[in-house]
């Protein structure tokens, strides 16, 4: 039976959700699932991983307390060369994407990044990836190799319940010396602003469809009438139209308001990951094919710059 390696991801003393998503995916494939935990004093993680894997390979060393691409890659090369798994799944995250290509090239693996699905056909994996902001999918076939590697998109596979009871195997750190060419220093927390959008009961959220800075006050007026806070997508924050602490999505905040009104937001997965837990989602977007409508309860396929003024009028009328 083939072996599948899954690289557990942890950060600031927390096991990240994508780890269980990768293990869920691995368990759906034929093979022995080995979770690889490179960390420092993380016994509780090892027991959690054991319920999702047939084996947990633990390297416990202060070298792995924080992420360092060079150290993690060196350790994985040694572990993979020793056990020769058929498939390695790593997270397509800020950590995983920092080594996927270089690790695969060092090992001579056939690989692809940011997959949203994976199956085994014959003896080889076949992957699904998203293109053009999720508007179309593509089937990826790999060149024949001894080893295949994929980076799994965070949130693409819902994590199942565990139920296994894998053995925990501690091995010595195979990396002789701590890397100097790259060195972890510290984390810098994102800036905190006046409003914590993770606590907002209603959010009016804007994306590229707002088009210009000068259209933002109109949205603020709408939010004011509703008693909602204003948030936005990465594009709007990058453009400097909203402060960074108002960003919803993978690199911003995860929000769970009673109402999420998405204005001119296309619904790229990076954004959707941060808002799909909202109770009620309403989307207004010119493009009727925008992925955001798949996540919305109600939609208006029209220009927000026309609908928002009309909505402001209606709400004013209702208030009398």
């Amino acid at each position, binding site marked *: 039976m083939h072996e599948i390696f899954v690289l557990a991801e942890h950060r600031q003393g927390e096991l990240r959700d994508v780890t269980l998503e990768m293990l869920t995916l691995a368990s759906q494939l034929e093979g022995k699932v080995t979770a690889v935990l490179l960390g420092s004093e993380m016994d509780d993680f090892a027991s959690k991983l054991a319920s999702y894997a047939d084996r947990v390979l633990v390297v416990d060393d202060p070298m792995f307390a924080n992420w360092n691409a060079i150290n993690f890659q060196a350790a994985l090369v040694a572990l993979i060369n020793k056990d020769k798994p058929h498939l390695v799944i790593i997270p397509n995250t800020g950590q995983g994407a920092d080594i996927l290509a270089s690790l695969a090239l060092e090992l001579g693996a056939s690989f692809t990044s940011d997959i949203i699905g994976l199956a085994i056909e014959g003896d080889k994996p076949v992957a699904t990836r998203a293109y053009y902001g999720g508007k179309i999918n593509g089937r990826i076939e790999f060149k024949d190799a001894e080893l295949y590697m994929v980076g799994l998109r965070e949130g693409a596979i819902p994590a199942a319940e565990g139920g296994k009871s894998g053995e925990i195997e501690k091995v010595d750190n195979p990396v002789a010396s701590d890397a100097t060419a790259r060195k972890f220093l510290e984390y810098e927390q994102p800036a905190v602003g006046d409003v914590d959008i993770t606590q907002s009961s209603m959010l009016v959220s804007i994306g590229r469809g707002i088009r210009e800075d000068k259209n933002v006050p109109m949205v603020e007026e709408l939010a004011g009438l509703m008693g909602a806070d204003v948030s936005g997508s990465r594009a709007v924050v990058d453009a400097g139209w909203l402060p960074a602490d108002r960003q919803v999505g*993978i690199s911003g905040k995860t929000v769970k308001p009673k109402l999420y009104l998405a204005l001119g937001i296309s619904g790229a997965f990076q954004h959707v990951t941060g808002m799909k837990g909202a109770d009620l989602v309403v989307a207004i977007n010119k493009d009727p094919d925008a992925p955001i409508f798949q996540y919305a309860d109600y939609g208006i396929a029209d220009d927000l710059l026309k609908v928002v003024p009309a909505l402001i009028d209606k709400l004013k009328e209702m208030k009398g």
Partner: protein
Amino acid sequence: MKIAVCVKQVPDTSDPDVEVHIDSSGKGVEEGKFSFVINEADNYAVEEAILLKEKHEGEVTVVNVGSEAANQVIRMALAKGGDGAIRLDDEKFAGSDPVALARILQAAIKDLSCDIVMTGCLASDDGYGAVGVALASLMGVPHAAYVKTVEVIGDNRLKVGRELEGGLLEMDEIDTPCVLTIQTGGNEPRYASFKGIREASKKEIKVMDLAATGLSEDQVGEAGSVAVMVQYSVPVVGDLAEILEGDPGETAGKLAGILKEKGLV
């Protein structure tokens, strides 16, 4: 300080009026109605390269794999402050995955003696986010992905901030030469000045074909790739939203009614 910055020309699919349709081959999309722009993250990489050049002096070379149509984005990067450009153009390059692309880019970059090579962290069309890291591996130099801040702290040392999920910045030190893949939002990409645009038209764009790269046919394109996209499909979509029909007055009225009924306004 010598910097190479890799740029890609992509369809501007952020425009909601642009629809993406799979073409008859099943491996491409109909590009007729697309307008083409510099990939967004690459635009931030160009700005970061020029900021470093302005602060520490040096030279910025713009590198692109693309047809003559890509000259538009190359010229714009030159107009902003790039000193020279290399465009890698050969029909054999078509279908290259991130590994084959990195190999092609390396052929152009290896003779530049760069201190820093930059790419965008992710392309908006195919979203691999792997070319820069693959390039570092081929060059045998350290790298950092998703970089939002870059500071020179020594002769051969940088301090970089990598953006992780939740907006957390991981601060690292890294030796040069190195490859950095640049995330959006870390700077404010400038607009090219008229003077810059005029000067850019005089700057050289060196063109390299397969023979000039010294690579063989089986190292590029699909033949040189480790993973190949063989078939596009339309994603299976779950339940769509209930679409409210009518003109803006009508749809706004319906929405206001729904919000009121649910006790939200």
